[in-house]
């Protein structure tokens, strides 16, 4: 096991896949000569040349659509969005083209493409640059969406995404890029559609994905000191959703707290909560608790922006509510 950062794990995944398959190319803003706005693509230009690592103009719609066209013509492009905030400019190409071409063509076309970049809050960026937009993608049939919470998953999920024959959106996190973790030395693919039990427990299930998994694990450690055994399910894949793992856990614990750093309405977390309520109705001892972002745009002030987001203490409070315990 090598210890590496989340950023390095993503880089290694792209490096290995580009070496393995010549149809894999990387394109996006600042991915080549600048080595990536967040240095995720560091060194790839030098290794693979400007035919395969391409700096684009700042035209998210244009280069995202170009990637889709390349994909239907037999390539496996990786389109890096500098952040998912900017991907809103490319929403049409993802929703109306990438996700639909197979369908509209009656199965004639394949769109093997990866869209990736940081999603969710960062720090001191205010409201246009700190948004968790998972549900924009998870909403859409025809896409797959993954959200790695740690370096090993970042590595294994991105490799699976690149090899997938459908469009895959990868939700990274600026605030995870520097996180270190163990990544297997041997080539490893993390299958899309399988959640992980990040921590086993018996009293309550905390379902989270992406960066909030860290908070969920912190909360579980705090709860342990109170004698409460929390199980943390890291979804890893949001579309498809590993309901088997979620439902098995909630069936066991009888209480569920769902964590999502998105806004509450029409969010992945709200959907997961609905599924739990439907599938595990007879197992629930309390309503499914939901810890989301506050329903406000992200403020610049640091104390305020922290107050907006899910935190370990908010998760602990939700768990206590689910257990009918006083804070």
């Amino acid at each position, binding site marked *: 096991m090598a210890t590496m950062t989340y950023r390095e794990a993503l880089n290694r995944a792209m490096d290995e896949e580009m070496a393995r398959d010549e149809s894999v190319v990387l394109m996006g803003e600042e991915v080549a000569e600048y080595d990536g706005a967040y240095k995720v693509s560091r060194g790839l230009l030098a290794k693979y040349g400007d035919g395969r690592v391409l700096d684009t103009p700042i035209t998210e719609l244009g280069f995202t659509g170009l990637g889709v066209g390349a994909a239907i013509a037999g*390539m496996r492009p990786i389109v890096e969005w500098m952040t998912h905030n900017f991907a809103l400019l490319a929403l049409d190409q993802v929703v109306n083209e990438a996700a639909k071409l197979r369908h509209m*063509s009656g*199965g004639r*076309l394949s769109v093997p493409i990866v869209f990736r970049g940081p999603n969710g809050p960062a720090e001191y960026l205010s409201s246009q640059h700190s948004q968790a937009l998972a549900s924009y993608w998870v909403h859409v049939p025809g896409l797959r969406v993954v959200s790695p919470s740690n370096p090993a998953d970042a590595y294994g999920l991105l490799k699976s995404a690149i090899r997938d024959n459908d469009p895959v959106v990868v939700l990274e996190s600026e605030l995870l890029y520097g996180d270190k973790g163990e990544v297997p030395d041997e080539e490893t693919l993390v299958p899309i559609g399988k959640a992980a039990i990040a921590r086993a427990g018996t009293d309550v299930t905390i379902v989270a994905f992406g960066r909030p998994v860290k908070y969920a694990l912190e909360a579980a450690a705090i709860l342990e000191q109170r004698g409460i055994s929390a199980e943390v399910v890291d979804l890893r894949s949001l579309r498809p959703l590993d309901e088997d793992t979620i439902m098995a856990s909630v069936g066991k614990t009888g209480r569920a707290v769902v964590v999502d750093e998105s806004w509450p309405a029409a969010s992945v977390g709200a959907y997961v909560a609905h599924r739990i309520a439907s599938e595990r109705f007879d197992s629930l001892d309390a309503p499914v608790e939901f810890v989301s972002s506050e329903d406000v745009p992200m403020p610049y002030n640091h104390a305020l922006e922290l107050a907006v987001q899910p935190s370990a203490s908010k998760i602990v409070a939700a768990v206590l509510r689910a257990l009918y315990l006083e804070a």
Partner: protein
Amino acid sequence: MKKPDIELYWNLRNEMTRIRRFEEKTGQMYGLRKIGGFCHLYNGQEAVAVGFIGAMDHEKDKVLTGYRDHGHALAAGMDPDGIMAELFGKVTGVSRGKGGSMHLFDQDKGFLGGNGIVGAQIPVAVGVAFAQKYKKTRGATAVFFGDGAIHQGAFHEALNLAKIWKLPAVLICENNQWGMGTSWKRVSAVDDFSLMASAYGVRGEQVDGMDVLAVRDAALRALDDARNGNPVLIEARTYRYKGHSMSDPQKYRTRDEVDEYRKQDPIYLLEEKIKAANAWDEKLALAQDEAADAMAEQAVAFAESSPEPALHTIYEDIYAGVPFFMGGHDAATGRA
């Protein structure tokens, strides 16, 4: 003056006639409620698709267009039966009844759709050209769009990308003068779309879209440029006889305007050229017309007799691998 290629003329006439008769039959079927939804007919614009696509190398070149796609699909050599069945929503349609009028596909003919979002096909087409270049196929990609689409950011972003990466793409703006109900002149900063190419250092060319021979000549030049890494923008000035779609009452233009353009009908103009070359053959013309009618009749018969898609097919053609569905429901069976 080049010696007229009479055989080519007759072939072009035949292709345009096939499209014209197919679209007339389509309009009829729409009126009989055999076809629903948005249905955009190509009548009047046949010279553009036939002139350009007829000049392409179908072994390696690719075509993409917008939602007014029946003519391009036929010009690319797609099976009229599969097209009509698709319009009817039948499982034998080229897109298995999933796409309909706006979404015809046949990758074996190099025809990559049939796109319903105005201008969205342009970056996709440039991406196809990117793959052609990356794989060194020597193929080029032609993308058709209307006078409405040229103002989309997608057009400008894509043309810029095509230029900076030297992609084998030809962008053909079919200026049929009406973006739905809006005259192109009311919404365009320039009165010659080919000028827009100059903003990106790309060669622009305006061509008479009612003259199939002119379009063909322009296509041959543009494709040659494109194969050499020089994308081209073409404005083909044309006219559509029918409404924007079948539901268009056409209050925005006069009967006289339509009649005026009918005098420049692309099939009529070509026939005049054949006659001028003393090559007119009334029996051949009649035979072409009758064959085109028979083709359209056969397509309708095929579509009529084709089965509806089974309910379970709603779960097909969405993912490459094992399909999955959110929500825990199965509409086909009602099972959770």
